[in-house]
């Protein structure tokens, strides 16, 4: 008989950190220029965490360090309690981390649907056996899921179009659809509202909330303060590569330090 519930089998008490991602003391230097100086960022599971700051504050650099596109000069990145500092971006995807890019990085010559299928890469069969022309139940399930994602993001009618031929706002949707097709636990979004029309920005907010409701923790770097204020639970303000303040959007954005950083007064 199994010793379920017995004294010895009792779970060891673990302090539940409940942080999806921890970036600890991240320093990043480029040829002597310090882009990030001992930045620590803790992202709580299930939250929408905003990163704001003036141009050159190091927001995108931090995102690149967190997603593995840049190795930090010093410091460590932990994903769900695991040290991923030395892992390449592609090895972080199966661990539940995906991202979008500031200026869009779609496979422009491929169709919208193919872009979404590529988002599923880490979950799909892609070895030589996958050449066998008869799909397994798993393959079909992924295909259905991709079509479902296209539906959610209003892309069904464009699924056969080459991604580069879509208007910018729709291309942004494709990128988000592709990123969530990996079934991430954490999604890093680099300026999702940039280049969007006013209407698209309005639609973006509920869409990000919907991602959180699906269980995805979201980190969002954004210039648009309306988007940040209406969607984020926590905001970290960076300035000159350092954390200026962290708190609720109302606290952080209204603080004197932030006004000084942005307005220079």
């Amino acid at each position: 008989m199994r010793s379920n519930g017995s004294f010895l089998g009792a779970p060891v008490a673990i302090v539940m950190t409940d942080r999806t991602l921890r970036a600890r003391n991240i320093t990043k230097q480029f040829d002597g220029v310090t882009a990030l100086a001992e930045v620590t960022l803790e992202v709580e599971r299930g939250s929408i965490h905003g990163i704001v700051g003036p141009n050159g504050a190091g927001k995108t650099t931090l995102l690149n360090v967190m997603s593995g596109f840049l190795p930090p000069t010093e410091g460590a990145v932990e994903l769900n309690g695991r040290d991923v500092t030395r892992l390449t971006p592609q090895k972080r995807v199966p661990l539940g981390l995906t991202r979008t890019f500031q200026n869009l990085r779609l496979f422009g010559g491929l169709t919208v649907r193919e872009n979404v299928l590529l988002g599923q890469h880490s979950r799909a069969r892609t070895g030589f056996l996958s050449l066998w022309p008869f799909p397994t139940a798993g393959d079909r399930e992924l295909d259905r899921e991709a079509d479902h994602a296209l539906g959610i993001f209003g892309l069904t009618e464009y699924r056969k179009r080459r991604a580069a031929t879509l208007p910018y706002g729709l291309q942004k949707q494709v990128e988000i659809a592709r990123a969530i097709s990996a079934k991430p636990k954490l999604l890093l979004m680099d300026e999702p509202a940039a280049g969007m029309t006013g209407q698209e920005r309005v639609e973006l907010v509920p869409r990000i909330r919907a991602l959180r409701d699906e269980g995805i923790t979201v980190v969002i770097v954004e210039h648009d303060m309306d988007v940040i204020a209406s969607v984020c639970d926590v905001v970290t303000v960076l300035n000159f590569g350092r954390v200026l303040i962290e708190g609720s959007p109302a606290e952080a954005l209204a603080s004197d330090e932030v006004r000084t950083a942005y307005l220079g007064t």
Partner: protein
Amino acid sequence: MSAYTEAVTIKLGIAILLALGYWITAATGKFSFGHAAFMGIGAYAASILTVKFDWSLETSILIAGLAGAIAGAFVGWISLRLSILYLAIITFAFAEIVKILLESWDYVGGASGLFGMRGTTVPLVAVCIGIVIVYLFLLTRSRKGLSYEAIREDEQAARACGLGVTRISVEAFAVSAAITGVAGALSAHETLIITPSQFGAAQSLLIILFVVLGGVQYFWGAIVGAVVLTMLPIWFDFLEEYYQITYGLLFVVLMILRPQGIIGRGTARRFDLDALKRLVPGRTGGDRDD
């Protein structure tokens, strides 16, 4: 089938095989400048087995493919993690090294070559092409094929999607080198004699031209390129010493009009005539005010 027709058909078949093999690595956006080396490795591997060890041609061809794959994986592994420029330099240098090594290897006749091979037939070449076409047909409809295209389109985006870019490129490169090795083996057993100089830069360039002319987008573009570039010298035979000039000129004009190759989508137009206008100095051809 007359001996002449048979010879032309086999030559054409080998060209198609070389083009299809090269297309696989081109599909990932990686261009090798030394694919003749894999052809040479396959040619020598198979020839040694048939001539010196009396192996059957079919088995020797398989070993030639394997030898090509191993060499391809090795070259790919050291060069594909680097930039595209390093890939060009390393593949080019590798081909020269292979040529020099073969020239100084007395066992295979050194620079004067190895001879006594025969046995390549039209059906044998056809079977090899058939297998490769079935493979490519399945590949281009699979997620593996899609991952190749993704890497060609944007490596950073591919990494963000979880694609192991280096691993996938090396794999494609090795398969490409394997098919090139098989083509080399078939070629060796058709030409009766092989010398290291046959597998030099000119041969590498010819293989690249098959694919560039035909177009990288679809694998049958490579077939078209191989057919055109193999048949042109034969069709233009009547031009005698002028054929190479005509041939070169045709190529230049086509590349200006259709940079994406004969097959494939590029600009909206079937032929980019504005490209010709851009060649005229003092005019900005395709630009319009609206």
